[in-house]
């Protein structure tokens, strides 16, 4: 809904409309307003609009589960059909938050599952979900549940999945990507295949679940509309019958090439005719040709979990001119990115993850620099999303991105710390040019190294990031003054993450108070005071502050994999909340405010 805003005197007419139009009509009109920001604005017009919005709102996203009370949500939106809840800070995806931090689904499911009679879609991200929670959900909503997304969640087992599979016969989407699930056997998939005939999306990618290929084949047989399957590891040669059966499949990721260098074994794998989104785990040089016959059709290629070399990347990408999404590790190298720039003219999203740093396992010719990024910027003008771990970068490369990628919506850059020498620091001017030119940018992440961005650069970010809502900054700035100058410019910033910066508690507090839209800030690595008292300078009504000291206790905390949480630096999390102080803090988190 773009265009000009009407003149104020025309509001009169708009409101006369409001006065005589019956509720029913307003209900109908409101039903066509879908954008959550539009909804929010409409709900604030007057009490009548607020009430009608509340009764007609079908979807709500709670961006942080401690920001509101479940009871409040139920009261306000009794006819909700779909709910998304986000839990732990993003740092949890990087192993920086111990598993017992919180973000429990239980209070939400207990409060909402039964009363929200229209609820048919639930999406939980980075939350702790138990078997009992899932059982309660299934009891109350199972008969009509169409979508269950547990995204990077922990705490449940395949027992709960069995229950879902048995009871939720309308389920269209079951999403479990990157969840830590206790595996008590593959029966859940068998049950799903037997009981469900309408499944469209099944995702247990990047989980450790073991399933039987025969059950997948049965699933494909019974669910004719299965369009997307992303799965854990399973040898591809065992999936031949599944692929023969799953005719509607467009999206496949996972599987595995367990036999190294055995193309003959995998030559018999024939992918379904409509497949255009693909990611094959452990694919190596020898197996790569399985993709060639249909590479022209591919729209998405995920090579993050493959064994391909730089040269392989060049070969394979040259055969994929229709890619919209490409995800790789930095082994792609500048050479690979040049091929991307030459070939993938429609590319929208590019993600370049970080490969191995171990010198013994270093990836040949890997590493991405200003050369590769510039080639991509010049070649792929449709890019909306770039996330890259680079070994080197220049102001010029950032300027090129600003010049050519006008549609950029989300830009994330991490400068790796392995290379001693970086060509062109600080990046003040490049960052400035990128922000000034990419006016559609809404998310921005910049993780550099000391000296990578001066206080001036930081103030440019504030000055030219008027539309940005989410930002992650790491190792930027030189002093508190930089942070304050940054903060004064950030009018629309809602969520900020800072890591490894030199700012004092006092400056953090002052900065928070300068950002009118800020509702969430997470900080790790700052100049902590002895007492932490300066953090209280940011205290105000409805603003919760939680402090995690770098105690030896947190050293002993383990993630679900049994990996120790290596990181023991203090963390600060502060957020707007209508729910008051949270009551389920683990002992090692100190709620500073409200006291």
């Amino acid at each position: 809904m773009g265009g000009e805003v009407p003149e104020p005197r025309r509001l009169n007419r708009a409101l006369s409309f409001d006065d005589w139009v019956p509720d029913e009509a307003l209900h109908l009109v409101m039903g066509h307003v879908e954008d959550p920001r539009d909804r929010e604005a409409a709900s604030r017009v007057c009490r009548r609009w607020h009430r009608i919005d509340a009764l007609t709102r079908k979807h709500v996203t709670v961006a942080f589960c401690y920001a509101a009370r479940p009871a409040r949500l139920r009261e306000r939106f009794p006819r909700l059909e779909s709910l998304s809840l986000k839990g732990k800070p993003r740092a949890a995806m990087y192993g920086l938050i111990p598993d017992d931090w919180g973000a429990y689904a239980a209070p939400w499911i207990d409060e909402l599952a039964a009363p929200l009679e229209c609820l048919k879609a639930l999406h939980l991200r980075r939350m702790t979900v138990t078997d009992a929670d899932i059982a309660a959900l299934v009891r109350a909503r199972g008969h009509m549940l169409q979508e269950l997304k547990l995204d990077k969640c922990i705490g449940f087992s395949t027992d709960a999945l069995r229950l879902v599979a048995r009871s939720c016969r309308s389920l269209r989407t079951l999403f479990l990507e990157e969840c830590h699930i206790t595996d008590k056997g593959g029966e859940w998939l068998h049950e799903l295949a037997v009981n469900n005939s309408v499944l469209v999306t099944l995702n247990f990618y990047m989980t450790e679940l073991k399933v039987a290929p025969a059950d997948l084949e049965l699933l494909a047989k019974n669910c004719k509309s299965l369009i997307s399957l992303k799965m854990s590891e399973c040898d591809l040669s065992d999936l031949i019958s599944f692929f023969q059966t799953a005719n509607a499949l467009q999206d496949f990721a996972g599987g595995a090439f367990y036999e190294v260098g055995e193309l003959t074994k995998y030559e018999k794998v024939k992918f379904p005719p409509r497949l255009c989104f693909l990611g094959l785990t452990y694919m190596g040089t020898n197996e790569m040709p399985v993709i060639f016959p249909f590479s022209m059709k591919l729209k998405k290629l995920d090579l993050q979990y493959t064994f391909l070399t730089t040269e392989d990347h060049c070969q394979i990408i040259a055969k994929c001119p229709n890619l919209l999404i490409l995800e790789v590790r930095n082994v792609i190298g500048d050479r690979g990115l040049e091929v991307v720039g030459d070939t993938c003219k429609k590319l929208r999203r590019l993600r370049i993850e970080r490969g191995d740093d171990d010198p013994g396992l270093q990836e040949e010719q890997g590493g991405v620099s200003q050369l590769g990024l510039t080639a991509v910027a010049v070649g792929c003008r449709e890019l909306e999303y770039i996330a890259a771990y680079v070994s080197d970068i220049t102001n010029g490369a950032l300027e090129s991105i600003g010049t050519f990628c006008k549609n950029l919506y989300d830009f994330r850059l991490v400068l790796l710390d392995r290379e001693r020498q970086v060509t062109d620091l600080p990046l003040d001017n490049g960052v400035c040019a990128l922000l000034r030119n990419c006016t559609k940018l809404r998310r921005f992440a910049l993780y550099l190294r000391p000296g990578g961005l001066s206080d001036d650069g930081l103030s440019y970010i504030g000055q030219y990031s008027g539309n940005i809502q989410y930002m992650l900054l790491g190792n930027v700035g030189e002093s508190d003054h930089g942070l304050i100058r940054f903060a004064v410019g950030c009018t629309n910033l809602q969520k900020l993450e800072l890591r490894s910066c030199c700012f004092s508690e006092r400056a953090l507090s002052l900065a928070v108070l300068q950002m009118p839209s800020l509702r969430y800030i997470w900080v790790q690595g700052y100049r902590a005071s002895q007492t932490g008292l300066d953090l209280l300078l940011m205290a105000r009504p409805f603003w919760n502050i939680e402090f995690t000291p770098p105690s030896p206790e947190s050293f002993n905390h383990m993630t679900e994999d049994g990996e120790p949480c290596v990181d023991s630096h203090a963390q600060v999390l502060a957020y707007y909340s209508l729910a008051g102080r949270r009551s389920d803090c683990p002992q090692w988190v100190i709620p500073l405010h409200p006291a």
Partner: protein
Amino acid sequence: MAAAGSSSRFAVTCGLLSQYMRERQQPQPPVTVLEAVAEEEEEEDARTMQLFPPRAAAADGVATPSAGTAPLTIFYDGRMVVVDDVPAEKAAELMRLAGSACSPPQPAHAAALPEMPIARKASLQRFLQKRKHRITTTSEPYKKAAVASPAPEKSFAVAPVKDEPATWLGL
């Protein structure tokens, strides 16, 4: 991808409408998100349409909420910062804050930041561990392939190794 962030025309109009409503109903306190639900019942007031509302251009003030902006100079921790175009209310707030907290600045030596490694995505971390395991247990297919020969040779595959226990495959 939906255009996020900058308000849509619809949202902006709603903002103006809301402003307008408030001005029309001067005596009533503005609806806030917090109290709106509690007060829902009493909403059914018979609102009559005012043909000549007291302030037809009620929303005129929206665009310029503050009196004006001016450069702000901050002296802080022995240094000076100049920030352009600071609204008066923001400056006042800053000054109030600065006044309310006069603890001496932290000595610089307390500032030494411990080194923090760049964190890695958990899923990738797991993959790289498996990859490492695979490289060290197989005949290093990855490195050999990387050496140069783009044409794969079958001989690499003499000893295929499953790096996962295959027990479940028989299910």
